[in-house]
């Protein structure tokens, strides 16, 4: 059986009984066979019994928690079953060695810039300004200069959003709190993506806290932040354009009672459904010559990183080829 992502949007409780996890609330009890679960996204207020939690841990299921406003809170990241001392030691070496770290940080930003440009072109927009940030990137000699190049590209990229979005205003990127509907969706989508990347890292030997672009000292598993940069335009931004322009998500799906705008429960439901459809959508992989899902593309990115740190093949970032 192929394991799936489970998104639990309503409030309730996760329990274990034999080989089954049950989601239970006043509306009833829904069984989820353990072998069907890849990861759980808890978007409502979720109680998990310790039995359920240890079972999920044993089966290597990550659980990602979001608060009732849809803000990411943290992840349950079970003890890893795939541990390779060799990989972790070399991963740390690629962080500690200035040139090696710079190489990877630049690669992530290069991929991110190229993907932003691809998304603009797919939407009929001019990408020259975004692409020109590659110049600053190639000249960067320090991590903050790499970050700077990324910021230049991102500003140019965001400046096109108001022409792409048909029924909503974007204005500028605002985060905490998001100032409008489009920003609320991007923020929510980015946290879902971060969680999805973290689940993929879990299924490899990579250490989630050793990162190259972001400082490992940040509160989150920073390697997931690094890898997520590549996929934000491809997965999240395109999804937002799609949901807004096809009027799948409309103003009634938001709540602006909290000095800022957030998706309400119904909006979150629609969003996670569409988000998961994206993760499961497949494209033909040019090298593997098989169909791979977007979610799998994230895993492949992890594999490429492992090969890079093992000196088997230089890492080249994922750039959307379709």
């Amino acid at each position, binding site marked *: 059986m192929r394991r799936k992502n489970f998104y639990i949007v309503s409030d309730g409780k996760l329990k274990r009984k034999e080989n089954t996890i049950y989601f239970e609330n006043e509306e009833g009890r829904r069984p989820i066979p353990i072998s069907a679960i890849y990861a759980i996204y808890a978007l409502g207020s979720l109680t998990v019994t310790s039995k359920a939690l240890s079972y999920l841990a044993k089966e*290597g299921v990550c659980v990602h928690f979001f608060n009732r406003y849809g803000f990411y809170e943290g992840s349950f990241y079970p003890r890893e*079953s*795939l*541990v*390779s*001392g*060799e*990989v972790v030691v070399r991963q740390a070496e690629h962080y500690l060695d200035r040139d090696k770290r710079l190489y990877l940080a630049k690669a992530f930003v290069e991929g991110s810039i190229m993907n932003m440009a691809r998304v603009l072109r797919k939407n009929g927009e001019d990408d020259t300004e975004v692409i020109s940030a590659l110049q600053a990137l190639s000249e960067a000699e320090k991590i903050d200069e790499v970050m700077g190049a990324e910021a230049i590209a991102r500003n140019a990229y965001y400046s096109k959003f108001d022409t792409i979005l048909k029924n909503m205003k974007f204005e500028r990127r605002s985060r905490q709190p998001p100032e409008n509907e489009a920003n609320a969706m991007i923020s929510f989508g980015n946290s879902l993506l971060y969680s999805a990347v973290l689940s993929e890292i879990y*299924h490899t*030997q990579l250490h989630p806290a050793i990162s190259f672009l972001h400082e490992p000292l940040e509160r989150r598993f920073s390697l997931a932040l690094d890898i997520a940069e590549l996929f934000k335009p491809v997965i999240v931004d395109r999804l937002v354009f799609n949901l807004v322009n096809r009027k799948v998500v409309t103003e009634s799906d938001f709540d602006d009672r909290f000095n800022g705008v957030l998706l309400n429960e119904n909006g979150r439901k629609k969003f996670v459904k569409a988000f998961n459809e994206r993760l499961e959508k497949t494209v033909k*992989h040019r*090298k*593997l010559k098989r169909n*791979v899902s977007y979610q*799998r593309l994230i*895993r*492949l990115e992890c*594999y*490429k990183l*492992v*090969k890079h740190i*093992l*000196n*088997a*093949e230089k890492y080249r970032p994922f750039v959307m080829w379709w």
Partner: protein
Amino acid sequence: MIDEMYIRGVQVNYYFVCKTKLWLFSHNVGMENESDAVKLGKLIHRSVFDRDEKEIRIGPIAIDAVRKGDVVEIREVKKSRAFEKASYYQLLYYLYYLSKLGIRAVGKLSYPKQRKNVEVILDESSAREMESVLDDIPRVVNGEMPRPVYKKHCRKCAYFEFCFT
């Protein structure tokens, strides 16, 4: 104890299947999902062997063995003859290993689906061959990860996506 005691049978097998696989496996860079091929192997194993066999575990190796008079016969059941050479050396390694412990053993590779058995005998020349393989395995494992080279069976290998993405 001799060094090669710390080499596992499956490493001898992978040495003949693929050096990249040997290296990755030896550095714990495993792929988590058992492929269906592995599951099928286990299934065949169970249905053929369930009754009269015993698994014995010595150091790093686990083998199925039956006693036949004063020799031990060890058997490996395989679902196909695709990796016959690898299976042959893996079994030969068990014989070699047991001989170092003073146990005389003969080997049999069986292919229930093809109704075919292959005898494996440890003699002077095959023992020498074994020794050179056992010398070479640490050389591969202690070197850098060998670059994946595409082979016919790669598409069925658990590492396929890892190697060729």
